[in-house]
């Protein structure tokens, strides 16, 4: 074995080189930038080293807004999308006729372009001088007041963003969960039925534990994905997210680099590191919780 070790490393070299250049080096660089005060990418100069960038970013009202938006988005969309996906997958696995058709329909949004879906949402929610949008028509039909979902109050905009995010992530989760459900040995359900187990108990005590690794995978990747939401917000509210008050952390980072107020790689790096710390913390908490509740075969 020992003699062949160098061969193993040899085979790994392309991957290591690739990851090193395009992943590890930029990561380290971002970390370094975040401590360099007043870094200028054109002249490659900076004034000093310290925590100033972090202090600045954490006091920037736009960043705080983005942080708040992101957290709300994460807390609302991850549980709802995962729960909804579980519900739909369980429904899909228990029907027989037209099962394939429904599976295809539910999977369609996944292969549809984000911006195209965004356009559909515009038609659904946007209120213009000529039309109130489909949703408002429905609201008015029930005797409600029309709401401007795109330019209106904060909660309305947040609702649209959450709705959109859930809509976009749902197909993938349904796909994963239906295949997880299909892999549960039907004999467990037979055994449970002979023992007179109620439907609810079968679901919570057998189905959920059996697919818990996949559920957990979806929750972790769901958290990470929701923390990184950016293009969804752009698709609905356009590129000036700060103006709309709907910026996200990744949006803030982008703006700091390339936006109209951009050109501040140091601030962007500091924000990126903060995001990294947040995601890392959440993931660690997830892992700790999962140790207790997830069953691996």
């Amino acid at each position, binding site marked *: 074995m020992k003699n062949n070790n160098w061969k193993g490393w040899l085979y790994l070299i392309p991957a290591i080189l690739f990851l090193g250049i395009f992943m590890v080096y930029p990561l380290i660089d971002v970390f370094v930038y975040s401590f360099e005060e007043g870094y200028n990418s054109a002249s490659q100069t900076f004034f000093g080293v310290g925590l100033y960038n972090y202090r600045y970013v954490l006091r920037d009202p736009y960043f705080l807004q983005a942080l708040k938006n992101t957290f709300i988005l994460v807390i609302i969309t991850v549980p709802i999308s995962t729960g909804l996906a579980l519900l739909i997958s369980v429904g899909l696995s228990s029907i027989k006729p037209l099962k394939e058709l429904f599976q295809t329909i539910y999977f369609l949004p996944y292969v549809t372009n984000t911006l195209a879906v965004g356009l559909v949402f515009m038609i659904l929610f946007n209120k213009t001088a000529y039309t109130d949008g489909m949703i408002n028509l429905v609201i008015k039909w029930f005797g409600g007041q029309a709401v401007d979902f795109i330019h209106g109050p904060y909660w309305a905009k947040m609702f649209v963003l959450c709705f959109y995010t859930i809509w976009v992530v749902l197909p993938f989760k349904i796909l994963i969960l239906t295949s997880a459900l299909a892999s549960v040995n039907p*004999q467990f359900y037979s055994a*449970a039925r*002979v*023992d*007179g*187990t109620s439907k609810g108990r079968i679901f919570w*005590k057998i189905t959920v534990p059996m697919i818990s690794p996949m559920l957990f995978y979806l929750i972790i990747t769901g958290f990470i994905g929701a923390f990184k939401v950016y293009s969804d917000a752009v698709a609905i509210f356009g590129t000036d997210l700060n103006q709309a008050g709907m910026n996200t952390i990744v949006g803030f980072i982008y703006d700091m680099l390339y936006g109209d107020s951009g050109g501040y790689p140091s601030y962007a790096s500091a924000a990126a590191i903060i995001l990294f710390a947040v995601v890392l913390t959440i993931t660690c908490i997830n892992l700790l919780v999962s140790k207790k509740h997830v*069953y691996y*075969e």
Partner: protein
Amino acid sequence: MEVFLQDLTKKFPSRNRRVREDKIAVNHFTLKIPNGKLIGLLGPSGCGKSTALNMICGLEKPTEGRIFFNGEDITDLPPEHRGVGMVFQNYALYPHLTVEENIRFPLENLKGKDRLSKQEMHERVMAAAKLVQIEELMERKPSQMSGGQQQRVAIARALVKTPNVLLLDEPLSNLDARLRLQTREEIRRIQRETQVTTIFVTHDQEEAMSISDMIVVMKDGVLHQTGRPQEVYDDPVNLFVAQFLGTPPINTFSGSVRNGHLWIGEDDVMIISGVPDQEVHVGIRPEGFILQEDGPLCCDLIRVEVMGRDTSVVSNHPAAVSLTIRSIISSETQVDTTNPKVRFALKPAKTLLFSKETEERIRFEVK
């Protein structure tokens, strides 16, 4: 609990569009199982044993026919109200629960007046565990146990609600030969202790013969014969049952009856009465041969295998249907291996005749 299956039929609709006919898994199956007995349900793979069991426990609805427990029609009762315990082919132990939680699971489902306190549950679980001797494994997960141990847990789980009927679907098929032997004795012991009416499904005839009070032989969904194991072995109703029971299997020949003589090929082996002239299948149990220098059945000797108590003579005959003829004789008898021919006389009780057309048994008397 006396179980009575009346004219039970199960048809599965054909999934293949080109084949219109339904698949008949169980075909007009009528059987009475006395209280407290262990029944071995025996048949080749795919003959409908599991389907029959699933209908008894309520997982499948019969297409036709009725099921009675102690005279009460329970055909339309859902599984949980039938009071049956079931052990599945690969145990179906919940892998994420410990042994204790697995055994407790059925008890936790009880509602209303049957509800048990924590203490009662614990006592019942421990009693069931004690019965199958797994008290020291209670904290393990199923994946941390051997096949035999898992099997016992599955039995404990099935017994914990004190069912009226215990159903075992090929419970030993995943065990190695040694463990099989041990576990089937165990099942017999548990059944004797609990006196629960038990149906034990297997396709291994030896297994069924060794532990059952009564065996039920089926093929292609049709019940062929029931009776005590020895009875069915000695007195099979048709060629299938005769061939299915016994190791080594019965030796078959094509023969004929002419003028009260039974012929196997060119050999006039026996004088019989009560059978009209016809072509027949002749089945001879391995222990039905007597080595005799002037015996009527003349075979070509292939080899002699001495296995402790018994000697088995492997030979061939032009009229044999089986590839080789295996006869078992006492070790004390010497076989002359230099002679290429070996001659046997036949024990009439071990010689069975079957109709060439219907394969039904033809009974005869010996003069």
